[in-house]
C-alpha cells in the first residue's frame, strides 16, 4: 500500500489563532481513517484541507504526490452532515449532475443517448446505496437516512480518489445509523475506497476505521488558549482484536473538556 495523501508539517492559522500545528502524517490508499477529538480541535479544518475548501498557512498537502490546490476538485468526494444534496433535483438528477458536469461543459445537461447512459450509471449507483425504488422523488420527501444514502451515491458516481465524510450520521436515529455504517463499510470494501470519516462518536470511529486519528492540543496555555493549535495526538492502526483496548487507551489519552481544564 502506498500513501495517497501526505501532510508535511502543515499549519493552519487564522490571524493569531492557531488551529492546526505541525501536522505530519501519511494516509494509505484504501484505508478507512476515523478522525476524532473534542470540538474545536481541528478535525473539520483537517477535512477542509483535504477537500481543498481552504489551504494550509504553512506546509504542504500532497495528493498522489501532487501539491493540492486550495480548491475543490472531483477527485475528492464529500458527504456533509446535512445540505449535501440539492433540494431542487430528484434523486436521479442529483446523482446525474456529476456526470453531466463532466460530459456537457456548456449546458451541464445531457440529451439523447448520452443522457440515457448517464441515467443508467446513476440508477446503478442509487441501487448500490439502496435507493433503487426512489429514483424520482425529491430530497424533501426522503428521510434523513435516505438523503445521506443519496449524498453518498452522488459522490461515488464520480469515483473519487478519497471520500470525505463529515459527521455523516450525526443527525440520524440510532437504528438508521447502524444501517448506514454497514452500508459505508460495504461500499468501502466493494469499491476499494479511501475514506476519511470525521465523527464525534468514538465507538463509531473504532468500529468503522482501519486507523483512528485523534486531534487535540498537545499544549495548553490557560491565558492564551488560541496560541497553541491541535495536531494528531493519537494515531493507531487497527486490526480486529485490539480494537477494544485501543478504544480504552484513547479515552484515557484525550485531554479533559475545556471547562475541566480551566479548573485544573
Amino acid at each position, binding site marked *: 500500500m502506498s500513501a495517497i495523501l501526505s501532510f508535511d508539517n502543515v499549519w493552519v492559522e487564522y490571524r493569531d489563532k492557531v488551529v492546526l500545528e505541525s501536522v505530519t502524517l501519511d494516509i494509505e490508499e484504501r484505508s478507512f481513517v476515523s478522525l476524532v477529538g473534542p470540538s474545536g480541535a481541528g478535525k473539520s479544518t483537517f477535512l477542509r484541507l483535504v*477537500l481543498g*475548501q481552504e489551504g494550509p498557512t504553512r506546509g504542504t498537502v500532497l495528493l498522489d504526490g501532487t501539491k493540492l490546490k486550495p*480548491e*475543490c*476538485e*472531483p477527485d*475528492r*468526494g*464529500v458527504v*456533509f452532515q*446535512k*445540505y*449535501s*444534496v*440539492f*433540494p*431542487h*433535483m430528484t434523486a436521479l438528477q442529483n446523482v446525474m*449532475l*456529476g456526470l*453531466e*458536469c*463532466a460530459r456537457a*461543459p*456548456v*449546458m*451541464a*445537461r445531457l440529451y439523447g443517448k448520452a443522457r440515457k447512459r448517464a441515467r443508467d450509471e446513476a440508477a446503478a449507483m442509487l441501487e448500490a446505496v439502496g435507493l433503487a425504488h426512489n429514483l424520482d*422523488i*425529491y430530497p*424533501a*420527501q426522503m428521510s434523513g437516512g435516505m438523503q445521506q444514502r443519496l*449524498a453518498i451515491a*452522488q*459522490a461515488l458516481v*464520480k469515483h*473519487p480518489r478519497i471520500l470525505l465524510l463529515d459527521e455523516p450520521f450525526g443527525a440520524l436515529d440510532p437504528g438508521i445509523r447502524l444501517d448506514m455504517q454497514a452500508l459505508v463499510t460495504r461500499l468501502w470494501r466493494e469499491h476499494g475506497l479511501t475514506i476519511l470519516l470525521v465523527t464525534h462518536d468514538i465507538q463509531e470511529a473504532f468500529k468503522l476505521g482501519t486507523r483512528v486519528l485523534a486531534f487535540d492540543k498537545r499544549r495548553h496555555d490557560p491565558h492564551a488558549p488560541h496560541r497553541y493549535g491541535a495536531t494528531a495526538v493519537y494515531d493507531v492502526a487497527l486490526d480486529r482484536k485490539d480494537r477494544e483496548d485501543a478504544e480504552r487507551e484513547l479515552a484515557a489519552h484525550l485531554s479533559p473538556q475545556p471547562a475541566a481544564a480551566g479548573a485544573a
Partner: protein
Amino acid sequence: MRVVNIKLNRGGRLLAGAIPIIAMLIVYGVMSAARLEANEYDKVLPTFGAMSDAFLRLAIETDARTGQITLLADTLASLRRLGIGAAIATLSALVFGIALGVVPTVRAALGPLIGIIAVIPPIAILPILFIALGLGETSKIALIAIGIAPFMIRDMAAHVSALPVEQIIKAQTLGANSWQLTLRVVVPQALPRLIHSLRLSMGPAWVFLISAEAIASNVGLGYRIFLVRRYLSMDIILPYVAWISLLAIATDALLMLLSRRAYPWAHEGGR
C-alpha cells in the same frame, strides 16, 4: 376552550372572511343613502347602481373621441407598462442578483452602487426620467423598473448567498465549474424566490405606474382616475380602484400558480 386553539373549518373561514367585507359594503350603502337624501346631487358617495352604470359605460361603449373602449384601452396601456417594467426588473434581478450572490468580485464591485441606488426614492428621479427619456412610454416603464429592481436584485443576492455553503462545495466536488454551478445549482433554486420577490414588488410597481400616469399620460388606469378627479367623479374612481385591485389579485394568483406548478419542490416539500 382557549381562543388561540379555536380552529375554523373551511366554511367557517369563508364566512369569517366575508363578514367584514359585507359589513363595509353595508356601512358604505347606509352612508351613501344618507348623503344622497340630504343632497340628491352629491357626488362623493355614489350609489352602487350609479357606479356600475358609470363603469359599464366605460367598459362597453366606444369613446367618441378616441374610437376605443376606454376601460379596455386604459387597462391594456397600464398592463403593458407594468408588464414591461416588471419584466426588465425581473431579468436584471436574475442576472445581477445571481452574479452578486455567486461571484465575490461582482459583489465587491457592484454591491455598493446598487446599495446607493436602492435608497433613492424612485419618485424623486421621475423628473430626471421625464427630462432624459421624454414623456412617452419609456419614462413610465423606466420608473417601474428602476423602482423595483434594486429591491429584487438585493433580495436575490441575499437569497443566493444564503444557500448552504455545503451545496456549493458539493457541486464543486462533483466537477462543476463556476458556470455549471450557477446554471444547475444556483439558478434553479433562485427562480422560485425570484417569483416570490416579484409578487412582493408588484405593490410598489403599481404605485410607480399610477404616479407616472397621473403626472404625464393620455391613457391608462392611473391617468383616468386622476382625470376624472377634476369632476369629483367618484362613480368612476371607486370602480376603477376596485378594478385595479382585481388586476393585482389576479396577477398575484397567477404568479403563485406559476411557482407551484414549475417548482413543486419549493412548496412544502414536493408534489
